[in-house]
């Protein structure tokens, strides 16, 4: 298990070099997106034949940020200072599996290289990671102050009014964001592996 520094935009080669269990520190840009954001993406960018005119500016901006970029499943606690700048106060990962129906399409559409969250994702996302050269990074659930402290700057926020603070697209610059690769671009999932191993050990314990 290696310790690897990742810088955005991340190359496909850098992603294919990662394996389940690797610990990474992320540097560069990331954009938060959770439940309502995924619904918005599907309805405006992915399902319709053309992106509605009103949403094209955000679409272009997300394309720029997410090509070789990073999505973070997070509903942060934020603070606005006297100068009007936003700061992340407490920002641990939220459970990712709720986005399983959409994430494969989102990865393909934007060319995402990494999705950060907690709890892992399912076979559809795992297949998309292999096909498009992406990984799932597991952040430490509950380590909210530590993670917020790796957020150097909030550079923009989109759809804050429409989706609400926890659900908005927050564009952040991070330095040394800690995470572990739990689904890699080679079809391996640590979550599957641990579940299988522990099922065997459970069976042995039940036989005692």
């Amino acid at each position, binding site marked *: 298990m290696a310790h690897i520094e990742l810088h955005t935009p991340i190359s496909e080669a850098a992603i294919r070099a990662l394996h389940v269990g690797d610990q990474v520190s992320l540097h560069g840009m990331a954009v938060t997106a959770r439940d309502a954001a995924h619904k918005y993406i599907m309805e405006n960018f992915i399902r319709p034949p053309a992106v509605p005119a009103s949403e094209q500016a955000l679409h272009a901006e997300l394309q720029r940020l997410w090509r070789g970029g990073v999505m973070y499943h997070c509903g942060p606690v934020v603070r606005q200072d006297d100068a009007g700048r936003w700061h992340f106060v407490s920002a*641990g990962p939220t459970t990712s599996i709720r986005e399983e129906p959409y994430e494969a399409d989102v990865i393909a559409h934007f060319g995402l290289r990494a999705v950060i969250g907690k709890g892992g994702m399912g076979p559809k996302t795992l297949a998309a990671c292999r096909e498009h050269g992406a990984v799932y990074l*597991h952040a430490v659930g509950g380590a*909210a102050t530590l993670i917020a402290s790796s957020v150097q700057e909030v550079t923009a926020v989109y759809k804050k009014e429409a989706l609400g603070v926890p659900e908005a697209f927050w564009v952040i610059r991070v330095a040394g964001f800690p995470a*572990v690769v739990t689904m890699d671009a080679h079809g391996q999932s*640590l979550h599957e592996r641990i579940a299988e*191993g522990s099922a065997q*050990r459970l069976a042995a314990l039940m036989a005692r």
Partner: protein
Amino acid sequence: MENLVPHFVELIRRAATDLPADVEAALRRARGQEEAGSAAQGTLDAILENVQMSRERSTPICQDTGTPIFYVYYPTGWSTLTLKKQIREAVAEATAKSYLRPNSVNSLTGRNTGNNLGEDFPYFHFEEWEEDYLKVELMLKGGGCENVGAQYSLPDTRMDADRDLEGVRRAVLDAVYQAQGMGCAPAVIGVAIGGDRGTSYLKSKEQFYRPLEDAHPDPKIAALEQRLIEEANELGVGPMGFGGKTTVLSVKIDSLERLPACYFVSASYMCWADRRRTLIYRDGQATIE
């Protein structure tokens, strides 16, 4: 009655931002046992750093500050009405100060009250006692770990679990296995044997007020607690489900009376962010443990 609101706000602040010493010590011991350089050890390092940072900055250890659960022990003659009013006021104030995230959502409208107050939120339990001082125990019970709690009705043929301590053992091991890392392992598992469905779950959560290092006074239960700590850790789920030696920090079991027809085993899951604090108010002096 005096105004105790500032003391209650401080109780909440300490609970949300300052992890108890016994929990931190258990995490530190666990860190020492994990393989050097493993994801498990790296995770525990991150957790310990986060604990330290949250304490220094007085910010919530985890952004999910959970359900605040208050157990209030009061001397004869005190007004529970006033106590409740003051604690609710403190909860709203602590939310405004960002010690708590607004966590009270109306189940029918989806509306968040924004101040952690609802008709049944936060949760209270009042008990008059013979002591001459006030004791308020607070735990913050996170949502992710609440989702992986489980209740079993024995016998259960799927697990070959009968109505005895061996059946209890099987149910608890199954619950820890089912949870994998999803409740932010390593966990403290609170177990209740007996009761009805409601009282059983409550009893299992009350176990989280116990110090991590204590043992049940009944030697048979104490032995099962110890055995389950070892066996649950053999499952290899590890911190956050990354694999490793530490899946649980402790297992706490208690029992309560049951009906002849029922035999429930309830396993509540408390994430590593096991946040609880106690306020003692005696002779006009407040201390927080």
